[in-house]
């Protein structure tokens, strides 16, 4: 994937047109980089300002009166309307539990669909794949009522479980399992191993890459989920970060330094995951395009 396919070899053709194009390209790319990075730096910088400095013009990129006041406000342990730390914890728990749930259920189902010939396999797979094309909002009302029936409203279960029913994980892993060579499993079957053992001891260890990709994607999707949590979580202590941030905007109005501090807290974990697991994230994104 790192191949440079249609690259013009630099060394051999140093003609001026080439050089100009190179410089222009770099210029564009660097400009773009500034466009993408500057707002994030601004968010970080504002989070360390006073309210006055956060709303004054001309803007200061480096805080003149550096303060951690915004952070101490949102991390204050007293009962608050915007318990950001609690939201952080909620998001962590929800995203982790959700990811675990997805990995377990999707891998098992994908294996069965890919490798075991059973009655109804084709039909089940067809049904599952079809739902991939149904937009999420169609399930919004009925799922709300179902979640209410279980008593999960305003609890983390409401944001952990329903999302794991999505078909993407099953589809994605099934593709991978299909591409694995069958000999190992056949040999193991002959040896008298049952499916569970094969699954646990052979398939899973060999699937680390797609599992990691799915894990990262599921984690990120759940962490960033917005529409659903906004409507199923109510009390301040039950929110996850995204609806929490939205409520911060209402609660703090022009205290932008506090709102930005919330944004920073919400961004750091995902950026960390991204930096360390970047290749999984990007691979996941590009793979989803290629399969189509």
């Amino acid at each position, binding site marked *: 994937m790192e191949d440079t396919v249609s690259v013009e070899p630099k060394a051999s053709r140093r003609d001026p047109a080439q050089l100009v194009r190179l410089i222009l390209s770099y210029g564009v*790319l660097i400009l773009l*980089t500034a466009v993408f990075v500057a707002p994030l730096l601004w968010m970080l910088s504002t989070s360390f300002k006073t309210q006055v400095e956060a709303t004054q013009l001309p803007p200061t990129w480096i805080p003149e009166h550096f303060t951690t006041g915004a952070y101490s406000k949102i991390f204050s342990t007293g009962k608050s309307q915007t318990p950001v730390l609690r939201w952080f914890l909620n998001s962590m728990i929800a995203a982790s539990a959700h990811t675990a749930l997805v990995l377990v259920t999707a891998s098992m189902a994908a294996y069965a669909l890919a490798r075991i010939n059973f009655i109804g396999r084709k039909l089940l797979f067809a049904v599952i794949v079809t*739902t991939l094309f149904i*937009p999420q909002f169609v399930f919004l009302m009925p799922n709300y009522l179902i979640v209410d029936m279980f008593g999960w409203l305003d609890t983390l279960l409401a944001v952990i*479980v329903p999302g794991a029913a999505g078909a993407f994980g099953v589809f994605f892993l099934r593709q991978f399992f299909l591409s694995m060579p069958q000999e190992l499993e056949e040999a193991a079957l002959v040896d008298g191993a049952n499916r569970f053992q094969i699954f646990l001891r052979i398939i899973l260890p060999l699937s680390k890459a797609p599992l990691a990709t799915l894990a990262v994607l599921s984690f990120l999707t759940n962490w960033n989920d917005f529409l659903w949590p906004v409507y199923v979580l109510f009390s301040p202590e039950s929110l996850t970060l995204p609806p929490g941030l*939205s409520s911060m905007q209402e609660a703090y109005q022009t205290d932008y330094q506090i*709102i930005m501090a919330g944004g920073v807290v919400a961004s750091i974990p995902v950026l960390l995951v991204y930096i360390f697991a970047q290749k999984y994230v990007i691979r996941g994104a590009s793979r989803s395009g290629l399969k189509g």
Partner: protein
Amino acid sequence: MATQNVRRTEVQTSTRKILGVGGRKPTDASLLTPYLFMAPYLVLFGVFILVPGFYGIWISLHNWDYLLPGKPWVGLQNYVDLFTPGSVTFEPFWQSMDATGKFTLYSVPLLVVVPLLVALVLNQEFRGRNFFRTVYFAPYVLGVAVIGILWRYLLDANVGLVNYYLGQLGLPDNIPWTNELPWAWVALVGPTVWWTLGFNTVIYLAGLQDIDPALYDAAKVDGANRWRRFLHVTLPGLRPILLFVITVTILLSANVFGQPYIITNGDPGDETRSAIMYIAEEGLKNFNMGSAAAMSYVLALFLAVISVANFALFRYRGD
């Protein structure tokens, strides 16, 4: 043949080692096994996708307020109302569809073309390419809430950076980005492009790299310049990717919720209130769930038609 057998034995030995089994007779694969494998997922799937699929239709046939014991049957009335001018839901629903339509119209071309250009540029540089790719993709992992509050602040009419720098450039510095038209559309489309550009760029990049270099060489030999190579090699090679990007971008734009919710709150008035915003409001704020469910099916139908049309268009072009 011989090599295969040899291989099989090697494989057998290693599997024995892994599984710690040896010499047992083949187990009768339980008929239940595949169903046991499928069961956990199927439970989730059944409860949260299959059942709601039908339940939603059932709800849409009633005047359904879940906090009230009575949910009177209204048949297709909720649907009929959506197509009857003068009914209570007709105007706000189509207004919200219009807002979603406008948003899609304004954002899709930008989201399809600009990332392609960026991908083309990235595809030729080989120094630091990964660095740029990483940077451009980064906003996408932040989620709509962070993007929303950040850009709401940047676009604030009085204290936002955008207006300040516009003023520095000699342009008007008091544009009401978040609560007046046509600026509100810029306030929605701009941050969306900023947010999603990297994602589409990555997809394009993967597609570009799949194009057989031999095709380019052949074209060069034929004397084709860069533009013609683009037209006749790159674009055709990208067709499935283009189809994918266009379809997905249209669908994602039609689903827009977070940006108008956080950045403009539907302002001015309800002009930028997207279809999803209105559906969620009707169903989960005003508790008219039947009506909201009906709306979601109508919108889903629209999207289905558009997706099919998209597919058909591309396949036609292909021949």
